[in-house]
């Protein structure tokens, strides 16, 4: 009983780390530009498919696809910002909400068109098997993916705090007009944040492809969960998103364990609603 509970808790922590990495990219975009990117989780799907095709066509293991996924999604994010999102930055609020919905529908269905809606898997990843700690079994790819996610999150955190570009991003997040007055090129910061946010979720896709099913609609649930994480963590707060991601991972698995696995996402959404009722600005906003 306790062994099972411990195993569930570990699972929750591991999936939570993945959620954190996905949500951090989203919260950066939200914080800097005040835009919800509804296509964020479809970028995750693209990352997973890049990893899948590199493996299937060229035999490249997902662990080596990570930089490729990061780079391709960085470029894609930049282009999407430049040609679509930047156009609505000064437009009506609703257009800002809807433009990325269009991108999401387009990308997900382009994937259906190109690769069919089938479920795929990377059959024999380099990392496989389980570690045994007494009664608790830990899947190695899951553990590595989660550790990697934490490492990338920490790297981003250091980048934002220690480098000049990172500080510029944080400055725009705090106050756009003051940052502009200080001579920061806010338009470039926008594009950069969008690209970095997309790149992070691409990396998350490569990690996730090591053990998760790969299919065009995979973004659906991940997307909704990551919106909740971002809002729960608080508007644009990277630390908030990181903690909320882990929290939601744990709540989801424990909720599924104690109540009903079919309701695990409903429990997460309910927790989100209760939290914003009490604290509309999120946990760390």
């Amino acid at each position, binding site marked *: 009983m306790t062994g099972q509970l411990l195993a569930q808790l570990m699972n929750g922590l591991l999936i939570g780390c993945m959620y954190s990495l996905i949500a951090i990219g989203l919260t950066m975009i939200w914080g800097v530009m005040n835009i919800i990117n509804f296509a964020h989780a479809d970028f995750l799907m693209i990352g997973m498919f890049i990893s899948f095709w590199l493996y299937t066509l060229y035999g490249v293991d997902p662990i080596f696809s990570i930089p490729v996924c990061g780079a391709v999604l960085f470029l894609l994010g930049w282009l999407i910002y430049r040609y679509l999102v930047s*156009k609505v930055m000064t437009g009506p609020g609703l*257009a800002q909400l809807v433009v990325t*919905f269009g991108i999401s529908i387009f990308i997900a269905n382009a994937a259906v068109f190109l690769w069919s809606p089938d479920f795929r898997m990377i059959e024999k990843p380099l990392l496989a098997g389980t570690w045994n700690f007494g009664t608790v079994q830990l899947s190695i790819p899951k553990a590595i993916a989660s550790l990697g996610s934490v490492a990338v999150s920490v790297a981003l955190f250091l980048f934002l705090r220690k480098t000049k570009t990172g500080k510029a991003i944080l400055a725009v997040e705090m106050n756009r007009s003051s940052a502009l007055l200080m001579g920061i090129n806010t338009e470039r910061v926008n594009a950069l944040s969008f690209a970095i946010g997309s790149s992070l979720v691409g990396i998350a896709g490569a990690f996730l492809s090591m053990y998760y099913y790969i299919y*065009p609609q995979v973004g659906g649930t991940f997307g909704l969960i990551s919106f909740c994480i971002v809002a729960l963590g608080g508007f644009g707060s990277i630390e908030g998103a990181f903690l909320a991601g882990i929290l939601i991972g744990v709540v989801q698995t424990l909720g599924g364990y104690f109540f009903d696995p079919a309701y695990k*996402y*409903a429990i997460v959404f309910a927790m989100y609603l*209760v939290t914003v009722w009490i604290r509309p600005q999120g946990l760390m906003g």
Partner: protein
Amino acid sequence: MMTMKKPTAVQVVFYAALLAGLLAFPLIVKGTFPTHIMIMVFLFAMMGVAWNILGGYAAMFSFGQAAFFGIGAYTSTILLMNYNVNPWIGLVAGGVLAALMGAAIGIPCSNLRGHYFAIASIAFAEIVRIHFNNWKFVAAAEGLSLPLLPESLGNFMFHSSKAPYYYIILVFLLLSVLICWYISANRMGFYLRAIKESHELAKGMGISFVRYRLYAIMISAFLTAMAGTFYAQYILYIDPESVLILPISVQVVLVAMLGGAGTIIGPIIGAAILLPLSEITRVSLGYKGSGIDMMIYGALIMLISAYRPQGVWGLLTTIGRRGK
């Protein structure tokens, strides 16, 4: 606000001609497919008008209208199947239930703004969907087939022709437009717009912020649930996948936005453009679920919102103003 002005003679003639054309449509066009498309246009136009009361006037961008739509569809269907209640009574019951649900969710969410409200509305609708997907009482994911009743207006069921459905949904749409027009021309409309312009200022003026937002949610939920009952009576089969999913909520938002949010006529124009487009691309290109129909749909949405964010109606009125 242009909707406040007294209509000119030209406008009166235009709308009268439009209405006459719509009334005559089923008599002139005989095919079932064109009638079906028109029914879907009216259905989504009605939901767009209902959304507009929330999103267009009060800037509460709900992405969870599918929950109200589904509650309407399920309430009347369950009442009919299990308790033999007439669908028209079911329609009112569904509307009341949806309005109560709207109030229940609206009270905790009434302080949320912008993106937070949007995400809360998605979270709410997803909880409803997941619950219905697992709820044995409503046959969970299997869905419900409506019992076939003899064809009559009283039974809200017709088998030989789609025309009666066409007229019913047209009446529903006109009713929604009237309600929306009434709200926008009266105190509540001004209050909602004041809240939209500035929360603090509206509060300072003594406008009860929570109360008017709640009214807006409840009215919007009621009308959307009516549309849900209509859908159930028209298609005669419902399951969570067809009445409760996020794409329905998104389509409602798009209908309102495409035409121009915050105008009465906007959602109707939006539905008149979007629904034929999505129905026709689905039928002509959507073989084997290839995804290409939805690709075109997604591409259009992103291009319109990026390059024509004021909507088609906004575009038309700008051209109109420039012409004067």
